[in-house]
């Protein structure tokens, strides 16, 4: 065992919640009991070790079923009813946390090999040298302490990843499951969560006969707090949007509610726009979000002028502005979050707006699903081996005219 793994027996004892480490000795020779208790009497007295005894494999299994605290088994091979090798097999299958040491005749390599193959941790030979046995016990217990530590770390990891799963599920549950489309427009959106989930979302609202709402947002921070804030934002926006509120009114309402008691100063950048599908007028409000792009039929790309508003959640009572844009047939609106432009490639270089605009200029009437996936593919290719540190969200809306 490598030096850095050295753990004193005291540490092992302390890791077992204060009580002694329980060892089950399995041998049909009853003389062994007295011998073990005598040889280890000091450590038994110091409450470091406790011994239990069984006389064959079957009895041993029964004792193990009764007592979950037994950490280690020391077993003879040749015994009536159930021998040591059969016991090892059962232990290996049903009690993987128990470490076993086998006692075999000196030079009995066949049985020793079988025992090791069946998961024995170590072996000692007969006649038992108690100094050797003590070293073997300590070695086994040190190993067990390390395994327990690793398991507790793993449990913490599982708990943590469970939290991430919850945030991820929350985020996935609010995304649209279908993309509105008529002969006047087509839509598509995708959101790829980062490993540590952020708070990106997007939404579409069909508002009466002629109107379509489209929203994209990015909440500050990550994990469950961000996911909760995102869900609140999305629900508030949805309720006001479906009532037919204009974008600036909707954002004003969402902002006022989110700003209440917002001790942690969380905020969301939120863009919301409504397309009048009859006229092609796109009326929008931008609460601190990356300006969406309009891609004209000829490949010209322009950023939508901002409405000089602030992200939502920080400035209660802020009066939001609006702006509008006349879309022509076959214009495409592209909305995104900073997970796209801030994706890091080689040498910490960011994907950036220039690459995005260049790519959008070459979409050449690819359908909306193709546009979003092409952007994602390019970002991924650019990032290469670099881990995705933020959610990536892309939304495309193509206006076909009236």
């Amino acid at each position, binding site marked *: 065992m490598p030096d850095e793994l050295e753990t004193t027996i005291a540490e092992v004892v302390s890791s077992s919640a204060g009580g002694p480490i329980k060892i089950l000795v399995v041998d049909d020779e009853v003389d062994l009991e007295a011998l073990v208790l005598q040889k280890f009497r000091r450590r038994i007295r110091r409450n470091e070790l406790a011994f239990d005894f069984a006389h064959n494999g079957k009895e041993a299994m029964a004792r193990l079923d009764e007592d979950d605290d037994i950490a280690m088994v020391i077993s003879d091979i040749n015994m009536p009813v159930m021998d040591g090798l059969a016991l090892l097999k059962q232990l290996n299958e049903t009690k993987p946390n128990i470490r076993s040491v086998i006692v075999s005749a000196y030079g009995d390599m066949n049985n020793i090999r079988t025992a090791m193959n069946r998961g024995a941790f170590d072996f000692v030979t007969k006649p038992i040298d108690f100094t050797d046995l003590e070293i073997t016990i300590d070695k086994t217990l040190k190993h067990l302490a390390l395994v327990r530590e690793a398991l507790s770390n793993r449990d913490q990891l599982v708990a943590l990843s469970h939290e991430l799963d919850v945030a991820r599920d929350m985020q996935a549950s609010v995304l649209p499951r279908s993309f509105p489309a008529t002969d006047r427009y087509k839509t598509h959106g995708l959101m790829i969560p980062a490993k540590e989930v952020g708070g990106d979302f997007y939404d579409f609202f069909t508002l009466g006969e002629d109107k379509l709402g489209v929203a994209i947002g*990015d909440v500050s921070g990550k994990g469950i707090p961000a996911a909760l804030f995102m869900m609140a934002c999305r629900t508030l926006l949805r309720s006001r949007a479906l009532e037919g509120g204009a974008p600036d009114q909707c954002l004003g309402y969402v902002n006022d509610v989110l700003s209440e008691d917002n001790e942690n100063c969380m905020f969301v950048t939120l863009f919301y726009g409504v397309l009048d599908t009859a006229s092609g007028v796109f009326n929008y409000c931008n*609460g601190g979000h990356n*300006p969406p792009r309009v891609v004209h039929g000829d490949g010209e790309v322009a950023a939508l002028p901002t409405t000089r508003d*602030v992200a939502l959640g*920080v*400035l209660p009572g802020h009066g939001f502005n609006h702006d509008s844009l006349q879309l022509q047939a076959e214009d495409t609106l592209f909305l995104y979050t900073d997970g796209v432009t801030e994706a890091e490639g080689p040498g910490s270089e960011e994907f950036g707006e220039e690459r995005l605009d260049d790519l959008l200029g070459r979409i050449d009437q690819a359908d909306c699903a193709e546009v979003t996936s092409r952007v994602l593919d390019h970002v991924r290719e650019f990032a290469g081996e670099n881990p995705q*540190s933020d959610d990536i969200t892309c939304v495309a809306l193509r206006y076909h005219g009236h």
Partner: protein
Amino acid sequence: MANGSVLDLSTETDGDTTVVIPTGRIDGSTASPFQEALLKLIEDGKGSLVVDFENIEYISSAGLRVLLMAAKQLQAGGRKIVLCAMRDHIAEVFKISGFSEILAIHPTRQDAINAG
């Protein structure tokens, strides 16, 4: 990778004004120590807090949130936060998010100290 991010802080004082000069990236992994450091400086100081962005390469939304918290904390005590010396791409983040409208930003540290 965000986990590898480094943010160093140095501080200076000019009269009652505390000047903090962070160096590196303010992102998801450094925002929390940054927040602790700022709140401590606010608690210990009595005048304005100037944050000099000269050596900041990147700030994420988590970093913006920390500045908002610091601003709120200072305002509660009738004090100010003043930011300065941002590189263009950092200034752009404040502009897009609209935070340049609610946080005072100056071109140089001296301007910021004078404004504080």
